[in-house]
């Protein structure tokens, strides 16, 4: 892990707010505007060629409220990097990584469904796990777990 920490540090210190070594990956905290630049350099210069996961965390009560988490893996050096960016509640927008990684298409659509994060430049922002007409973002902490939005009228079950 120290090997990649040094490599990443010397390549990226100018655009990254903080770098720390966690138990399973190197964690980079960045400003949202720096994502595409960092991802490009991770892929092209530092051999992080596999985009593993994109998700978000809802820190309700804190500002900025959302935190996107992008995880990368290097199939050459077997290292992992986690890139995190905080987004405000009123405008949770961040750039899309679809031009860089084909796997980002579905993962960003899921993140948008679940949290409402807008990925600017995504070519196909349709709902993926939810359905057309679903109002709200279920994984936000203020969406009640039991609020169903049925598509089919319930039938009368009295015998």
């Amino acid at each position, binding site marked *: 892990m120290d090997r990649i920490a040094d490599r990443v540090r010397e390549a990226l210190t100018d655009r990254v707010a903080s770098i720390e070594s966690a138990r399973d990956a190197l964690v980079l905290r960045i400003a949202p505007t720096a994502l595409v630049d960092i991802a490009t350099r991770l892929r092209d210069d530092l051999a992080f060629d596999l985009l593993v*996961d994109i998700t978000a965390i809802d820190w309700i009560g804190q500002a900025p409220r959302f935190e996107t988490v992008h995880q990368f893996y290097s199939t050459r050096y077997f290292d992992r990097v986690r890139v995190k960016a905080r987004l405000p509640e009123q405008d949770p927008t961040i750039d899309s990584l679809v031009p860089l990684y084909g796997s980002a298409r579905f993962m960003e659509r899921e993140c948008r469904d679940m949290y409402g994060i807008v990925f600017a430049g995504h070519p196909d922002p*349709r709902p993926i796990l939810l359905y057309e007409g679903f109002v709200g973002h279920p994984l936000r902490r203020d969406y009640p777990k039991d609020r169903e939005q049925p598509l089919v009228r319930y039938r009368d079950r009295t015998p």
Partner: protein
Amino acid sequence: MTPRDHVPLNSPVRSLFDDAGDGEVVVNLGPSHPATHGTIQVIACLDGERLTRADVHCGYLHRGFEKECESHTWHNLIPYVDRLNYCSAMINDFAYCAAVEALMDIEITPRCRDLRTLLSEYSRVADHLTCIAASLMELGAMTPFLYLVMVRDYIYEHMAQLTGARVTHSYGRIGGLARDLPDGWLSRLAEVLDEYEKFTARIHGLMDRNRIFIDRTRDVGVISAAEAIDLGFTGPILRSTGVPRDLRKDTPYLSYASLDFEVPVGINGDNYDRYYVRMREMDESVRMMRTLAPRLAEGPINVDDRRCTLPPKPLVYGEIESLINHFKLIIDGPRVPAGEVYVAHESPNGELGFFLVSDGTGTPYKVHCRAPSFVHMGGLHRLLEGYQLADVIPTFGSVNMIGGECDR
């Protein structure tokens, strides 16, 4: 909110294209379809028999797993986690428990490590058997389906002797396992592995050089290594393109560092290679199990840590501290220190990861499952486009989409 009236069929999703070009036809496959393994919808634009564009829709099995996680204790999630990749339920258990153990800085016991390795490989065999059986049946080969499901049934009954359930085992626990092996379990394991070899020898005889099978799967659903990595493919699909990436070898976990096994790779990246990579992986798994079974470490299976392991029942009924400990663990859940972690295991489909965020209590703040099937669905259109409509079936079968994992 009042439910809406019955709406036309294609309303849950919007298609990417509803205008076909000259002479093209738009056809809908799924989401209730025998060969889409449950719940995938492929809206295909056809030029004659050839697919020009494919729009893959998943989400029909989205059961709100991640939302459920936020209202249950860390222990109570183990049955939910089982039902992600339900073909190999134990691997999900162990990956999730490993992630929680990483957050709690717990080191599992050597016997637990060996057992988890053995059972992960056993689950891998069950999953690959299901995948190959289903995809061969969809091509018309009914006999291999019956043979492979027979072996799989032996495995299920054997797992039921250990865990109590045939399919969704809920056997992993944070810090260990639910219970130790019963007497006679390992000798039955040797018998089941012998049956496996007998039946797979027949499958090899039926399928490997079968003209029809080769015609339907060779050079169909081809993907290159660079494209596969760009689209996020891992597991047997990536290995079928020739890239020998396997988390068990590259970043060893559990007891894999001490086991000697090969990572089979393919040549073309087509359906035939995926079938053969899975057959060879099962052989390697059986080899690992045969090596590991006689030399399982002795000792306890649960780590002796009051933060996660339930105290023994005599103590619970005997002393007040154990009673309170037991009560707190059941009602509040094990207190996991605040932080986050991502732990990935090599599941039969690829990299299965759990990203956990804890706020210090017994209930998770966030649990995210990085499902290989979901990412593979994102790249499926590349495997389907350019081939014939009938090729959708073998290609889809070779990708082994598991709905519980894909849609979570």
